[in-house]
């Protein structure tokens, strides 16, 4: 049995307890989310959904194909979703959700719930309703757009600047360095985090000839409070001017 119902704010399913239908649910959820949140990575959401559904099939309904599973995916904000999975088993003990991932790769015990836990903001189990509810924030796929005008190049990162995009970040910064634009503005309104690898990239740029001597200038605009604190803590404020601070995201 596979029944699907879509409304403006949610997508709900009723399925028999079989693994192939889990795949269909995940596929439908992916298509649904793409309608709203393009430019976001869905890996975390699909891992959470799959692990909770598989848990409902294997452990909740104990593989009994006659029993049903309900799944509701609700969009609760930009890039944010609530996922509720209901089965007909005995309900999931809440303490099972706090089990960490085993550190040793040889450990045999189940990783599913721990894996879901790692990718969800929060997972709550209500054994009386036999429902597990997960909240997931999608990760933004980071990319960099740049424009140049009147000697100023503006680079606007879309998403967080972490080690995974360090090479792209370095490339756009070097594009400014190789250009004739004396000034660089990093427009940070769409960035929440910058990790130490990318901070290293930024500092390397600050130490390059011409920049270190002050002939070329770097400004950070609309950076969140957290980012400004990070720049202050690492004393990068001595190398980079911070203007028009944004709100904490």
């Amino acid at each position, binding site marked *: 049995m596979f029944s699907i119902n879509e409304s403006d704010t949610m997508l709900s399913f009723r399925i028999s307890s079989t693994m192939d239908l889990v795949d269909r649910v995940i596929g439908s959820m992916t298509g649904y989310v793409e309608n709203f949140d393009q430019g976001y990575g869905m890996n975390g959401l699909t891992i959470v959904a799959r692990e909770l559904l598989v848990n409902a099939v294997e452990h909740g309904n104990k593989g009994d194909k006659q029993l049903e599973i309900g799944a509701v995916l609700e969009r609760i904000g930009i890039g944010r979703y609530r996922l509720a999975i209901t089965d007909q088993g005995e309900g999931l003990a809440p303490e099972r959700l706090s089990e960490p991932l085993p550190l040793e790769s040889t450990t045999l015990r189940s990783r599913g719930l721990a894996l879901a*836990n790692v990718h969800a*903001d*929060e997972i709550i189990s209500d054994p009386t309703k036999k429902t597990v509810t997960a*909240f997931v924030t999608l990760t933004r796929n980071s990319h960099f757009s740049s424009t140049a005008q009147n000697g100023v190049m503006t680079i606007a990162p879309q998403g967080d600047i972490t080690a995974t995009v360090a090479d792209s970040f370095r490339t756009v910064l070097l594009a400014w360095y190789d250009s004739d634009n004396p000034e660089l503005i990093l427009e940070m309104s769409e960035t929440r985090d910058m990790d*130490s690898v990318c*901070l290293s990239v930024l500092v390397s740029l600050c130490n390059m000839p011409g920049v270190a001597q002050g002939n070329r200038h770097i400004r950070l605009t609309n950076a969140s409070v957290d980012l400004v604190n990070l720049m202050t803590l*690492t*004393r990068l404020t001595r190398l980079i001017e911070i203007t028009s601070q944004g709100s904490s995201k």
Partner: protein
Amino acid sequence: MDKIRLRILIADDESGAATLTGAMLTPFKAEITTASNGREALELLTRASETESPYDLLITDIDMPVMRGDELVATLRERSIPIPILAITGTGDKQLLVRLMRSGVTEYLDKPFSVQDLRERVSTILEKVQAAHEQKQLAEDQHWRVVSMKHELEQYEQHFSEIRSQVDFAISTYRSLTEIRDGIPGLQCAIQSLPYRDLGGDFCAVNPMPHGFDFLLVDVAGHDMGASYIAVLIKAFFEENRKIGKNGEDFFLALNSALASNGSGRMCCAVFLRVDNEQQSFEVTCASHPAPIFVAKDFTIPATMVETTGTPLGFDAPLSFDTSKLSFSPGDRLVLYTDGVSTLTRVDGMSGQRTILGSDGLRALIEAERHLPLTEMMEMTSVKALSFARHRLADDLMIIGLELSGEPHVQH
């Protein structure tokens, strides 16, 4: 794909007719050979079939001395010599035609025939032959591509295997960085470490010193072999400092020169702790590192941050470090931790609100567990910190508890 020059054998006892037929086929630019009877044709075809350039078409008359055309066709089939055959017939013998077609003759042409008739028949056959040649060539090319790719794949597998063993070695080397093997008199130490990746740049090390010990905790940016390489380099540099005895500030200045000249461009945050058991005092120097937490043995004194500031290491940039010097009593503890601990984040599911543990949050966790022996205090603090973030890591976690005995020792 280049066209292959095709080979045609014409078997006819009338040499004039054979030559004329050959002339009619000039537009095909094929290599034409003639044979004066079936046996001669059979010998030529048999020999050529054993080479890499067999004939592509046999045009054969039927009435020939020594060996007739139909005998030739039948013998070719018996010997399994595959070749398209165009039979030139002149008798109107329908039974012969049926026999020829059953023997595998591809096409036939009644005498007399026009140039156009001959060319049409030959063209039809040669197009198929040409296509078959091209198909064969393609299959051979693909075969060699597969062979070549398989060879390349084997080389990649070998390289991968070599790189994998290097990475495994790097991982085991990195893991050993956080092992403090030799006991340091006057120091009890409990380390809680949870790596974010197999490779990384968090590590700690301790040096016994004449009046106590030096302790270094470093967080190198990144989770790759580069980070681990820098970590190894810093550890070697720190071990060297055991002989030189530079204090925190001088050590960081010297280390930064080494890192900058190394050209890594990796940011490193670090904290250098020097404990003097004789004076019962300690100095903390930070390079953009979270402030250590001082936990007095006296429970009435709240756990406090040892606030110091300093620039990160790893860049050719102006440096400055502050050093805090404090006294301690035997049994007091210090907790050092990387920012992977203080930046542990809890997200509220419904609102999406993010709460960062922070150094204050960590201090509160320690405060609640400070009554426990050092190892248990660190274990419980680590468990609670991870639980706060629902086991979601964004960086390596390293948190170290040190219990200061204040007992002087004699260095060997």
